[in-house]
């Protein structure tokens, strides 16, 4: 996986997000699947949806405005890994 892979976001209406006290619940309408997620996944999904999509690099830039992400190289690798997992689950689309 590279940090330049572009992932397209799911449309807003495809995901139902419900925060519980300790985790976030996600219902993906197209697949009917339920996922339980914790940070940084909700934040990454939010960043993806704001731009309609993104790469690890663009998502990193967006998240860095609001969060402390640590050393950029490690952060980029982490975000890329999370994006790949989201794509595996059909919650984002690798173009």
């Amino acid at each position, binding site marked *: 996986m590279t940090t330049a892979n572009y992932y397209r976001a799911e449309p807003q209406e495809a995901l139902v997000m419900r925060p519980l006290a300790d985790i976030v619940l996600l219902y993906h309408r197209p697949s009917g699947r339920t996922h339980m997620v914790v940070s940084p996944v909700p934040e990454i999904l939010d960043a993806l949806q704001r731009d309609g999509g993104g790469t690890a690099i663009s998502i990193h830039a967006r998240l860095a405005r609001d*969060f402390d992400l640590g050393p950029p190289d490690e952060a980029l690798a982490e975000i890329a890994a999370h994006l790949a997992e989201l794509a595996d689950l059909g919650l984002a689309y690798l173009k």
Partner: protein
Amino acid sequence: MAALASKLSDQDQMSDQTPQQDDDRADMAVPSRRQLLMGGAAAASAIVSIRPALANTAASVLNCTIPVPDPAKGNVHINPSGQLVPAGTPGAFPGTGRSFTGEQVKQAMRGRPLPGTSYGQNQAYMNYIRRLQSGTSGFTCYASLQMPR
């Protein structure tokens, strides 16, 4: 680790602060922005998916397994791989009985940490939840519990 920002950077965060958090901020020398990523370690999965039901076939009934109850007794903590361990075990996080108000959760979603939690704690909890999913949702070995073998 990169040096952490020492000044408040976000107008949104300023306006959302509660008096309690103003006090916290006065006590802390440090971070104004919440740490989002682990830093330095391989990304652990932050997603647990509810598995779909097996097809309602005889084979699925006979092959499903019955979950083992937790050994939880008294004060337990969760180790990073999600197993319950005695309280005080090094590297383990406080137990699962946490609850936060809806307001606290909303603020966490906007970038303020839930009180007392950390990235590692979240990961441990997710692994604990992952382990609870022994069978598949939608067909929980109900029939096999009832049917004699």
